Protein backbone atom coordinates (compact mmCIF):
# COMPACT_ATOMS: atom_id res chain seq x y z
CA UNK A 1 0.00 0.00 0.00
CA UNK A 2 2.87 2.27 0.85
CA UNK A 3 4.33 1.79 -2.62
CA UNK A 4 1.04 2.12 -4.44
CA UNK A 5 0.19 5.41 -2.69
CA UNK A 6 3.57 6.70 -3.72
CA UNK A 7 3.08 5.73 -7.35
CA UNK A 8 -0.57 6.70 -7.94
CA UNK A 9 -0.59 9.89 -5.90
CA UNK A 10 2.95 11.24 -5.76
CA UNK A 11 4.45 10.07 -9.06
CA UNK A 12 1.80 9.37 -11.71
CA UNK A 13 -0.78 11.73 -10.20
CA UNK A 14 -3.61 9.54 -11.48
CA UNK A 15 -5.42 10.02 -8.20
CA UNK A 16 -5.58 12.84 -5.67
CA UNK A 17 -4.67 12.22 -2.04
CA UNK A 18 -8.37 12.52 -1.18
CA UNK A 19 -9.41 9.99 -3.84
CA UNK A 20 -6.71 7.61 -2.72
CA UNK A 21 -7.76 7.77 0.92
CA UNK A 22 -11.42 7.36 -0.02
CA UNK A 23 -10.64 4.32 -2.14
CA UNK A 24 -8.47 2.99 0.64
CA UNK A 25 -11.41 3.36 3.01
CA UNK A 26 -13.74 1.57 0.60
CA UNK A 27 -11.16 -1.14 0.05
CA UNK A 28 -10.98 -1.57 3.79
CA UNK A 29 -14.71 -1.54 4.17
CA UNK A 30 -15.03 -4.52 1.88
CA UNK A 31 -14.24 -8.07 2.85
CA UNK A 32 -10.90 -9.27 1.60
CA UNK A 33 -7.38 -8.02 1.33
CA UNK A 34 -7.30 -4.30 0.73
CA UNK A 35 -4.35 -4.35 -1.67
CA UNK A 36 -6.36 -6.51 -4.03
CA UNK A 37 -9.49 -4.45 -3.51
CA UNK A 38 -7.50 -1.32 -4.28
CA UNK A 39 -6.27 -2.90 -7.51
CA UNK A 40 -9.85 -3.68 -8.54
CA UNK A 41 -11.11 -0.22 -7.53
CA UNK A 42 -8.31 1.73 -9.21
CA UNK A 43 -8.48 -0.44 -12.34
CA UNK A 44 -12.24 0.10 -12.54
CA UNK A 45 -11.98 3.84 -11.84
CA UNK A 46 -9.35 4.34 -14.57
CA UNK A 47 -10.57 1.92 -17.25
CA UNK A 48 -13.83 0.15 -16.37
CA UNK A 49 -14.39 -3.60 -15.81
CA UNK A 50 -11.55 -4.63 -18.13
CA UNK A 51 -9.26 -2.29 -16.27
CA UNK A 52 -10.28 -3.95 -13.01
CA UNK A 53 -9.55 -7.42 -14.41
CA UNK A 54 -6.20 -6.36 -15.87
CA UNK A 55 -5.25 -4.59 -12.69
CA UNK A 56 -6.09 -7.62 -10.53
CA UNK A 57 -4.19 -10.10 -12.72
CA UNK A 58 -1.15 -7.88 -12.98
CA UNK A 59 -1.32 -7.27 -9.28
CA UNK A 60 -1.26 -10.95 -8.34
CA UNK A 61 0.64 -12.89 -11.01
CA UNK A 62 4.18 -11.55 -10.80
CA UNK A 63 4.21 -11.20 -6.99
CA UNK A 64 3.10 -14.82 -6.62
CA UNK A 65 6.05 -15.98 -8.70
CA UNK A 66 8.43 -13.72 -6.79
CA UNK A 67 7.16 -14.84 -3.42
CA UNK A 68 7.67 -18.47 -4.46
CA UNK A 69 11.27 -17.61 -5.35
CA UNK A 70 11.75 -15.77 -2.07
CA UNK A 71 10.40 -18.69 -0.07
CA UNK A 72 12.85 -21.03 -1.79
CA UNK A 73 15.75 -18.64 -1.16
CA UNK A 74 14.69 -18.34 2.47
CA UNK A 75 14.60 -22.12 2.82
CA UNK A 76 18.17 -22.44 1.50
CA UNK A 77 19.82 -19.36 2.96
CA UNK A 78 17.54 -18.44 5.85
CA UNK A 79 19.92 -19.84 8.44
CA UNK A 80 23.12 -18.24 7.10
CA UNK A 81 24.23 -15.71 9.77
CA UNK A 82 24.83 -12.85 7.34
CA UNK A 83 21.39 -13.36 5.77
CA UNK A 84 19.81 -13.47 9.23
CA UNK A 85 21.48 -10.16 10.13
CA UNK A 86 20.34 -8.54 6.90
CA UNK A 87 16.82 -9.82 7.41
CA UNK A 88 16.62 -8.53 10.97
CA UNK A 89 17.83 -5.09 9.84
CA UNK A 90 15.24 -5.05 7.06
CA UNK A 91 12.50 -6.22 9.41
CA UNK A 92 13.04 -3.17 11.59
CA UNK A 93 12.86 -0.89 8.55
CA UNK A 94 9.70 -2.68 7.38
CA UNK A 95 8.04 -1.89 10.71
CA UNK A 96 9.28 1.70 10.41
CA UNK A 97 7.58 1.86 7.00
CA UNK A 98 4.27 0.77 8.53
CA UNK A 99 4.50 3.51 11.16
CA UNK A 100 5.46 6.07 8.50
CA UNK A 101 2.44 5.11 6.39
CA UNK A 102 0.17 5.51 9.40
CA UNK A 103 1.68 8.94 10.03
CA UNK A 104 1.18 9.98 6.42
CA UNK A 105 -2.44 8.92 6.15
CA UNK A 106 -3.19 10.42 9.58
CA UNK A 107 -2.79 13.84 7.89
CA UNK A 108 -6.27 13.46 6.38
CA UNK A 109 -7.88 13.38 9.82
CA UNK A 110 -9.54 16.65 10.72
CA UNK A 111 -8.30 18.49 13.78
CA UNK A 112 -11.24 17.44 15.88
CA UNK A 113 -11.40 15.28 18.97
CA UNK A 114 -13.69 12.51 17.73
CA UNK A 115 -11.72 11.13 14.74
CA UNK A 116 -8.55 11.01 16.80
CA UNK A 117 -10.42 9.34 19.65
CA UNK A 118 -11.62 6.59 17.28
CA UNK A 119 -8.13 6.11 15.86
CA UNK A 120 -6.68 5.92 19.37
CA UNK A 121 -9.37 3.47 20.55
CA UNK A 122 -8.76 1.15 17.56
CA UNK A 123 -5.03 1.26 18.27
CA UNK A 124 -5.48 0.46 21.97
CA UNK A 125 -8.06 -2.27 21.39
CA UNK A 126 -6.25 -4.20 18.66
CA UNK A 127 -2.62 -3.22 19.25
CA UNK A 128 -2.24 -2.93 23.02
CA UNK A 129 -5.11 -5.03 24.40
CA UNK A 130 -4.84 -7.57 21.54
CA UNK A 131 -8.59 -7.97 21.36
CA UNK A 132 -9.95 -9.85 18.32
CA UNK A 133 -10.57 -7.61 15.34
CA UNK A 134 -14.15 -8.88 15.06
CA UNK A 135 -15.03 -7.58 18.53
CA UNK A 136 -13.28 -4.23 18.07
CA UNK A 137 -14.85 -3.56 14.68
CA UNK A 138 -18.25 -4.82 15.75
CA UNK A 139 -18.35 -2.31 18.58
CA UNK A 140 -16.56 0.65 16.99
CA UNK A 141 -17.63 0.69 13.35
CA UNK A 142 -21.36 1.42 13.95
CA UNK A 143 -20.54 4.30 16.30
CA UNK A 144 -17.90 5.69 13.95
CA UNK A 145 -20.22 5.55 10.95
CA UNK A 146 -23.08 7.07 12.96
CA UNK A 147 -20.81 9.90 14.12
CA UNK A 148 -19.70 10.57 10.54
CA UNK A 149 -23.32 10.40 9.35
CA UNK A 150 -24.26 13.13 11.84
CA UNK A 151 -21.37 15.23 10.59
CA UNK A 152 -19.32 14.96 13.74
CA UNK A 153 -16.20 13.81 11.95
Amino acid sequence: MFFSRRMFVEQRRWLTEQEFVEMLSIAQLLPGANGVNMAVLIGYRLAGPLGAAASLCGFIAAPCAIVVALALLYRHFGSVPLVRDALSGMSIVAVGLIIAMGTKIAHVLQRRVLPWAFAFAAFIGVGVMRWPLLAVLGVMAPFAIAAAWKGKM
Partner: protein
Amino acid sequence: MDWTQLGGLFLYFLMLSFLAIGGNASVLPEMHRYVVEVHGYMTSAQFAEMYTLAQVAPGPNIMYIPLVGWHIAGWLAAAVMMVATLLPSATLTLAIAHLYVRHPKAAFGIAIRRGLTPITIGLVFASGWILLPAVSQDWRGYALAALTVAVVMRTSLNPLWVLAAGAAAGMAGLV
Protein backbone atom coordinates in the same frame (compact mmCIF):
# COMPACT_ATOMS: atom_id res chain seq x y z
CA MET B 1 -0.35 -30.37 9.64
CA ASP B 2 -3.31 -32.66 8.91
CA TRP B 3 -6.40 -32.05 6.79
CA THR B 4 -8.48 -30.91 9.75
CA GLN B 5 -5.99 -28.19 10.59
CA LEU B 6 -5.71 -27.18 6.95
CA GLY B 7 -9.48 -26.98 6.72
CA GLY B 8 -9.51 -24.89 9.86
CA LEU B 9 -6.95 -22.57 8.34
CA PHE B 10 -9.02 -22.24 5.16
CA LEU B 11 -12.21 -21.43 7.07
CA TYR B 12 -10.37 -19.03 9.35
CA PHE B 13 -8.94 -17.10 6.42
CA LEU B 14 -12.28 -17.08 4.64
CA MET B 15 -13.75 -15.61 7.82
CA LEU B 16 -10.84 -13.20 8.10
CA SER B 17 -11.36 -11.99 4.55
CA PHE B 18 -14.91 -11.03 5.50
CA LEU B 19 -13.63 -9.19 8.57
CA ALA B 20 -10.80 -7.49 6.80
CA ILE B 21 -11.37 -3.79 6.61
CA GLY B 22 -7.80 -3.56 5.36
CA GLY B 23 -5.47 -6.20 3.98
CA ASN B 24 -2.31 -5.10 5.61
CA ALA B 25 -3.52 -2.66 8.19
CA SER B 26 -6.18 -4.63 9.94
CA VAL B 27 -5.64 -8.28 9.09
CA LEU B 28 -2.06 -8.26 10.29
CA PRO B 29 -2.75 -7.89 14.03
CA GLU B 30 -5.54 -10.47 13.89
CA MET B 31 -3.44 -12.91 11.86
CA HIS B 32 -0.58 -12.45 14.28
CA ARG B 33 -2.94 -13.15 17.17
CA TYR B 34 -4.23 -16.35 15.53
CA VAL B 35 -1.01 -17.78 14.14
CA VAL B 36 1.42 -16.75 16.89
CA GLU B 37 -0.56 -16.15 20.07
CA VAL B 38 -3.44 -18.64 19.79
CA HIS B 39 -1.92 -21.58 17.85
CA GLY B 40 1.82 -21.05 18.23
CA TYR B 41 2.45 -22.09 14.61
CA MET B 42 5.47 -19.75 14.52
CA THR B 43 7.25 -17.22 16.70
CA SER B 44 6.53 -13.54 16.55
CA ALA B 45 10.01 -12.95 15.07
CA GLN B 46 9.39 -15.51 12.30
CA PHE B 47 6.08 -13.84 11.54
CA ALA B 48 7.86 -10.50 11.20
CA GLU B 49 10.45 -12.12 8.90
CA MET B 50 7.74 -13.44 6.58
CA TYR B 51 6.20 -9.98 6.54
CA THR B 52 9.58 -8.43 5.70
CA LEU B 53 10.32 -10.90 2.90
CA ALA B 54 6.98 -9.97 1.32
CA GLN B 55 7.80 -6.27 1.74
CA VAL B 56 11.04 -6.67 -0.19
CA ALA B 57 9.15 -8.23 -3.08
CA PRO B 58 7.44 -5.82 -5.46
CA GLY B 59 3.66 -5.96 -5.48
CA PRO B 60 0.89 -6.11 -2.92
CA ASN B 61 2.03 -6.53 0.64
CA ILE B 62 -0.66 -9.13 1.26
CA MET B 63 1.91 -11.50 -0.20
CA TYR B 64 3.03 -12.15 3.34
CA ILE B 65 -0.13 -14.24 3.74
CA PRO B 66 0.96 -17.08 1.40
CA LEU B 67 4.45 -16.80 2.90
CA VAL B 68 3.09 -17.33 6.40
CA GLY B 69 1.04 -20.26 5.07
CA TRP B 70 4.11 -21.72 3.41
CA HIS B 71 6.07 -21.38 6.64
CA ILE B 72 3.33 -23.17 8.59
CA ALA B 73 2.74 -26.11 6.24
CA GLY B 74 4.29 -25.72 2.80
CA TRP B 75 2.85 -24.92 -0.61
CA LEU B 76 -0.58 -26.37 -0.06
CA ALA B 77 -1.21 -24.13 2.95
CA ALA B 78 0.14 -21.15 1.01
CA ALA B 79 -2.31 -21.78 -1.84
CA VAL B 80 -5.19 -22.44 0.55
CA MET B 81 -4.62 -19.19 2.41
CA MET B 82 -4.23 -17.18 -0.79
CA VAL B 83 -7.46 -18.49 -2.34
CA ALA B 84 -9.42 -17.99 0.89
CA THR B 85 -8.13 -14.44 1.06
CA LEU B 86 -8.83 -13.47 -2.56
CA LEU B 87 -12.02 -15.30 -3.47
CA PRO B 88 -14.65 -13.16 -1.76
CA SER B 89 -12.92 -9.82 -2.18
CA ALA B 90 -12.42 -9.55 -5.92
CA THR B 91 -16.05 -10.37 -6.66
CA LEU B 92 -17.58 -8.03 -4.14
CA THR B 93 -15.17 -5.20 -4.82
CA LEU B 94 -16.10 -5.19 -8.48
CA ALA B 95 -19.74 -4.66 -7.54
CA ILE B 96 -18.88 -1.88 -5.10
CA ALA B 97 -16.45 -0.27 -7.55
CA HIS B 98 -19.37 -0.01 -9.95
CA LEU B 99 -21.49 1.78 -7.34
CA TYR B 100 -18.68 4.06 -6.24
CA VAL B 101 -17.87 5.27 -9.75
CA ARG B 102 -21.56 5.92 -10.38
CA HIS B 103 -22.35 7.54 -7.06
CA PRO B 104 -19.11 8.91 -5.64
CA LYS B 105 -21.03 11.47 -3.57
CA ALA B 106 -23.64 9.15 -2.02
CA ALA B 107 -24.05 10.51 1.49
CA PHE B 108 -24.11 7.19 3.29
CA GLY B 109 -21.05 6.00 1.39
CA ILE B 110 -19.23 9.14 2.48
CA ALA B 111 -20.31 8.57 6.10
CA ILE B 112 -19.00 5.00 6.00
CA ARG B 113 -15.70 6.11 4.52
CA ARG B 114 -15.27 9.04 6.90
CA GLY B 115 -16.23 6.92 9.87
CA LEU B 116 -13.87 4.06 9.09
CA THR B 117 -10.85 6.15 8.13
CA PRO B 118 -9.80 6.90 11.74
CA ILE B 119 -10.19 3.22 12.68
CA THR B 120 -8.01 2.25 9.74
CA ILE B 121 -5.33 4.67 10.88
CA GLY B 122 -5.50 3.24 14.41
CA LEU B 123 -5.08 -0.28 13.02
CA VAL B 124 -2.02 0.71 10.98
CA PHE B 125 -0.35 1.94 14.16
CA ALA B 126 -1.49 -1.23 15.96
CA SER B 127 0.39 -3.29 13.32
CA GLY B 128 3.56 -1.31 13.98
CA TRP B 129 3.09 -1.60 17.74
CA ILE B 130 2.69 -5.40 17.60
CA LEU B 131 5.60 -6.04 15.25
CA LEU B 132 8.16 -3.65 16.74
CA PRO B 133 9.04 -5.80 19.80
CA ALA B 134 9.19 -8.85 17.51
CA VAL B 135 11.88 -7.34 15.31
CA SER B 136 13.98 -5.56 17.91
CA GLN B 137 14.63 -5.82 21.61
CA ASP B 138 16.99 -2.92 22.20
CA TRP B 139 17.22 0.84 21.68
CA ARG B 140 19.30 0.57 18.50
CA GLY B 141 16.47 -1.21 16.73
CA TYR B 142 13.95 1.36 17.93
CA ALA B 143 16.32 4.10 16.78
CA LEU B 144 16.50 2.52 13.31
CA ALA B 145 12.70 2.32 13.15
CA ALA B 146 12.44 5.97 14.20
CA LEU B 147 15.09 6.92 11.63
CA THR B 148 13.08 5.09 8.96
CA VAL B 149 9.97 7.07 9.84
CA ALA B 150 11.95 10.34 9.72
CA VAL B 151 13.56 9.52 6.36
CA VAL B 152 10.26 8.51 4.78
CA MET B 153 8.45 11.60 6.11
CA ARG B 154 11.20 14.04 5.09
CA THR B 155 12.34 12.66 1.73
CA SER B 156 10.82 10.97 -1.30
CA LEU B 157 13.49 8.29 -1.32
CA ASN B 158 12.29 4.96 -2.68
CA PRO B 159 11.56 2.80 0.40
CA LEU B 160 13.47 -0.06 -1.19
CA TRP B 161 16.64 1.93 -0.59
CA VAL B 162 15.67 2.32 3.04
CA LEU B 163 15.12 -1.44 3.25
CA ALA B 164 18.54 -1.99 1.65
CA ALA B 165 20.09 0.36 4.21
CA GLY B 166 18.39 -1.67 6.93
CA ALA B 167 19.92 -4.85 5.50
CA ALA B 168 23.34 -3.19 5.45
CA ALA B 169 22.94 -2.00 9.04
CA GLY B 170 21.98 -5.54 10.05
CA MET B 171 24.95 -7.09 8.29
CA ALA B 172 27.29 -4.52 9.85
CA GLY B 173 26.03 -5.64 13.24
CA LEU B 174 24.58 -2.24 14.10
CA VAL B 175 21.14 -3.55 15.07
